[in-house]
C-alpha cells in the first residue's frame, strides 16, 4: 500500500535530498497528517516501506498450505497467483503505458503454447525448464514488440481494436493450426496434451499427488511473482518508468520534450507481454495441457476487472484486485457461499456508507423492518410465496427476510431483474430524501433478485458481477482502490 502515497516511504528522516524543496517534499504528508493515537498508528503504517509489505504478504501467503490441505483451495490459491502475475503485466501496459491493450491474454496464450511446444511429446522436444522458460519469455517480449510495431501510430481506441483483432487472430491460428500447410502445429481445438511439468535434469516438479494439487507449484508461482513484482517496481522507478507516466499523461508534451514516445510504447507492450508469457509457462506446466479457448475474452475481462478494481498504475493495487476477484469468482460458483458474500457485502456497504451519513443507518434499519413486513404480509396472503428453500450459509436468517416463491412463474425473473436495473438507475438520478426512501425497496429488491434469480444460475451471475464492478468503478472511482489519479490532458 505504500506506493499509494507519492512520497511517503522514501523521504529520508533527516530531510529532503539536495535539490528538493522541503515543503514540496513533505506537502503530501502534511496534508494527510492525522491526529490522535489512531492517527499516529496510521502514520506508522504508512511509513512501512513497500518491501516490508511485500515480505509480509509473501509470508502470509506461504503459510496458506500449512493450514489448508484441500487440493482445491491450493489450486485456487495457485490460480490467484497466476492472476496476480497477469494483473502486474497488464498494469505495465494499461496503468503505466496508458495503452488499452485488448490482446493481452493472447500473450498469456502464446507463452503457454510456446512452453507446450518446447516441452511435450508434440514435437518430441523436451527442453530443460531453465532453458525453455527464458526462451518463452523472450518470445513473449519479441511478440509484444512486434504487435506494438504497427500499433504504435495508433492511439486510444484504434489500438484497442488492433489488439482485440490480434487476440482474434491468435484464436483463429491456434484452433486451425492443426492443418497449417499440411502440418499439425498447434493441435487445433484439441490443444496440446501431456505437457511436461517443470523439470530440472531428471527431477520433475510433480503437479499432483494422488490427484491432490501439489503445493510446490504454488511456491514456484509465488517466487516468480516476487521476482516480477520487484523487477517491475525498479523499472517503474527508473527513468523509463517516469517517462512512461509522462507520455501517458500527455504524449504530445512528452514528445515535445524529446522523449521517444513510440519507443516507450513498444517497451511497455514488450514488458507486459513478457510477464504474460512467463505466466503462461506456469499455467501450461501446471495444467499439463493447453487449449485455444482458455485464452479468450472472458479471461481478458477478468484480468481487466482486477487491474481496474485495484487501481491501474499501482502495483499493490492490481495485486489486491487479483486477490479479491479471483477467490470471489470461485466462491460465487457456490450458491451458499455466494449468499454469504452478498449479505456481508450488503451489510458492510450500508455500514460503511452510514459512517458518512447517519440517514443511511436509518435506511438500513428501515430496510430490515421492510423486509420482515413484506415477508409476513406475503406469507399471510399465500404461503407458497415464501415457501422456497434456502440452502447453505445464512439460510436461517434470510428465510424470514427475503421472499422466495416455491415456484418461480416465468415472468418473475425477467420482471424483477429489469425492475431492479430500473430502480438502481432511478436511485442514481434522484437526490435527497427521495433517494433515501427509494433506497429501501431497491435494497430489498436486490436481495430478492439475488436469492431467487442470480443464485439459480451462478455462471452468468458471477460475470454480471464483474460487468457491474467495471461500470460502477469507472464512474465512481476510476482510479480503483489504490490507484493513482490520472490527469489526462485532452
Amino acid at each position, binding site marked *: 500500500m505504500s506506493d499509494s502515497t507519492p512520497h511517503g516511504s522514501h523521504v529520508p528522516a533527516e530531510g529532503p535530498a539536495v535539490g528538493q524543496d522541503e515543503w514540496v517534499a513533505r506537502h503530501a504528508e502534511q496534508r494527510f497528517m492525522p491526529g490522535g493515537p489512531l492517527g499516529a498508528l496510521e502514520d506508522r503504517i504508512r511509513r512501512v516501506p513497500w518491501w516490508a509489505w511485500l515480505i509480509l504478504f509473501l509470508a502470509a501467503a506461504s503459510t496458506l498450505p500449512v493450514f489448508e*490441505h484441500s487440493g482445491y483451495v491450493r489450486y485456487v490459491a495457485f490460480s490467484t497467483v497466476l492472476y496476480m502475475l497477469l494483473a502486474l503485466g497488464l498494469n505495465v501496459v494499461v496503468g503505466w503505458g496508458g495503452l488499452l491493450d485488448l490482446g493481452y491474454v493472447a500473450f498469456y496464450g502464446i507463452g503457454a503454447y510456446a512452453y507446450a511446444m518446447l516441452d511435450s511429446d508434440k514435437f518430441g522436444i523436451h527442453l530443460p525448464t531453465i532453458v525453455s522458460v527464458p526462451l518463452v519469455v523472450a518470445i513473449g517480449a519479441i511478440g509484444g514488440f512486434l504487435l506494438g510495431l504497427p500499433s504504435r501510430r495508433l492511439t486510444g481506441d484504434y489500438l484497442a481494436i488492433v489488439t482485440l483483432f490480434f487476440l482474434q487472430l491468435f484464436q*483463429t491460428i491456434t484452433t486451425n493450426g492443426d492443418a497449417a500447410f499440411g502440418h499439425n502445429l498447434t493441435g487445433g*481445438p484439441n490443444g496440446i*496434451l501431456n505437457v511436461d511439468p517443470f523439470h530440472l535434469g531428471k527431477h520433475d516438479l510433480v503437479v499432483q499427488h494422488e*490427484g491432490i494439487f501439489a503445493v510446490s507449484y504454488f511456491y514456484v508461482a509465488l517466487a516468480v511473482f516476487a521476482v516480477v513484482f520487484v523487477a517491475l517496481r525498479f523499472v517503474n522507478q527508473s527513468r523509463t518508468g517516469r517517462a512512461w507516466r509522462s507520455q501517458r499523461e500527455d504524449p504530445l508534451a512528452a514528445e515535445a520534450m524529446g522523449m521517444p514516445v513510440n519507443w516507450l510504447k513498444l517497451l511497455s507492450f514488450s514488458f507486459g507481454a513478457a510477464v504474460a508469457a512467463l505466466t503462461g509457462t506456469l499455467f501450461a506446466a501446471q495444467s499439463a495441457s493447453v487449449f485455444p479457448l482458455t485464452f479468450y475474452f472472458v479471461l481478458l475481462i477478468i484480468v481487466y476487472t482486477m487491474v481496474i478494481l485495484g487501481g491501474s498504475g499501482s502495483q499493490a493495487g492490481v495485486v489486491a484486485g487479483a486477490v479479491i476477484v479471483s477467490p470471489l469468482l470461485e466462491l460465487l460458483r457456490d450458491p451458499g457461499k455466494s449468499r454469504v458474500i452478498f449479505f456481508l457485502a450488503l451489510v458492510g456497504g450500508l455500514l*460503511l456508507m452510514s459512517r458518512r451519513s447517519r440517514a443511511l443507518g436509518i435506511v438500513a434499519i428501515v430496510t430490515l423492518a421492510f423486509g420482515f413486513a413484506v415477508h409476513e404480509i406475503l406469507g399471510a396472503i399465500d404461503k407458497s410465496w415464501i415457501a422456497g428453500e434456502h440452502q447453505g450459509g445464512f439460510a436461517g436468517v434470510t428465510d424470514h427476510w427475503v421472499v422466495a416463491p416455491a415456484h418461480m412463474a416465468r415472468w418473475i425473473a425477467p420482471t424483477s431483474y429489469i425492475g431492479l436495473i430500473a430502480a438502481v438507475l432511478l436511485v442514481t438520478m434522484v437526490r435527497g430524501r427521495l433517494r433515501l426512501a427509494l433506497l429501501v425497496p431497491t435494497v430489498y429488491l436486490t436481495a430478492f433478485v439475488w436469492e431467487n434469480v442470480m443464485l439459480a444460475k451462478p455462471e452468468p451471475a458471477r460475470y454480471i458481477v464483474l460487468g457491474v464492478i467495471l461500470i460502477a468503478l469507472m464512474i465512481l472511482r476510476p482510479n480503483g482502490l489504490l490507484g493513482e489519479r490520472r490527469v489526462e490532458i485532452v
Partner: protein
Amino acid sequence: MKKAIGLALAVLATSVVAASAQGSNRIAAVSAAGVNCKSTITLPLVTPVTGGAGFLGAEQGSWSKYAVKTLAKPLGLKVKFVLGDTPVEQGPAPAQALAQKYVADKSVLVVLGPSTSGAVAASSSTYYAAKIAHISPSATRTSLTQGSSKEATPAFFRVVPGDYIQGPSDANFMIKTLKVKKVVLLDFQEPYSTGLSDSVEGVLKKAGVSTTRLSAPNTTTDYSAYVTKVPSDADIVFFPTQKPGDAQTFAQQLVEQGKKAKVFGGDGSNDPSAFKAGGSYVSNFAPDITGIKADAAIVAGWKKENPGKAVGSFGPPSYGATQVALNAIALACKAGHGTTTRQAVLSSIKKVKIKNWILGGDLRWSTKSNDPLNAKFYIFQIQSNGAYKLVG
C-alpha cells in the same frame, strides 16, 4: 476516503474469508480414507450447463437428478446431486478446475461426466490420480478409451459407444442404405466435430465415395457461403454440430438454394425441438426410449418431474450413468461392510450389471476397454412433421 477504502477492503476480505470457512473441507481427501456409507455422498455431473451447449446440461441434469431421486434410497444411499458447469465456449479448462474441486471434496466417491470429450481428456488424469471413477454419458471420442495413445485413464468409463462405432455406422448407412456418390463434410474447428468428420470421411473414401471437406469457425452462424460450396449433385452434407439449431439453418439454406443434398447430423444435433427439417438424418447412441416397454415407468416418472419437456436422447444415458455410479457405490459399500473408498468404488464399476438397461437390453462391459459391450448407434430420419423415425 483512505479510511473508507481501508474499511471496504477489510469488509471484502472478511466476507471472502467467512465464505471460504463456510463448510470448507479442512481434511485432506486422500483416496485411501474410508467414507461411511451412511453419510451423505456428493454425486457431481460435469456438463455444459451454460453456453451454446447448455441444452445438453439441462437435459442430462434433469435425468441424473431423477435417477438419484428414485434409485438412491432403495440402494440404501444418501446422495446429494450437484452440477458442474463446463461451457463449451471456454474449452476444456473449466473441467480441470472442477476436477480439483471434486478431488478435494471427500464426500465425492465417483463423478458423472465430463459430458464432452475434450473435457474428459483434460481432467481424466486428475481423477485417476485420486482414484475417482468418472462415468460419461455422452463423450464419444474414440481415442479416449482405444488406440495406442489413450487420452483418458483407466478411471474413465462411458455408457455409450464411441465414435469408433458412430463414424463407421454413419458412413456405412450412407454407403449401403442411401447409396451416396458425393458427400460434403463439415467440421466446426472444435474437437468433437473434427474427430467425427475425420472418421466418417475415412470410411467413405475407402468405399470410393467422393468427399469434400469444409471447415467453419465455431462462431459461425450464417452458413450461406458453405451452402454455396455444396455441389448440386451432392447427396449428403455431414454436419456433426453440437448446436442443433445450426443444422436446422443449414437444411433450410440448402432448400433455399435448391440443393438436393440432405443434412446428416451426429449425436450432437439430436434435438427434436431444434433440428426438425424434414428429410434430414441424425445418428445417436441411444434409441428413442419411449418405444421401449421396460422404460415406460421411468419415462412417466421423469415426465411428472419435468412437465412439458420432451424426452431427448442425451437424458436416458445420463440416467444410465447415474444408475451405474449408484450401483457401484452400493456394491463397494456392501463389500466394505458399511464403509468404502474411492478405490473400491472404482474397481466395482465393471462389476455392475444392469438388467433391462434403459437403452434397451442389458448393460454389460467390454473386457478390453471401459466401453459398453454390444452397444450400437441408431440412425433416425426426420419426418416432414419433425418426428424422428428410426431407420437404421
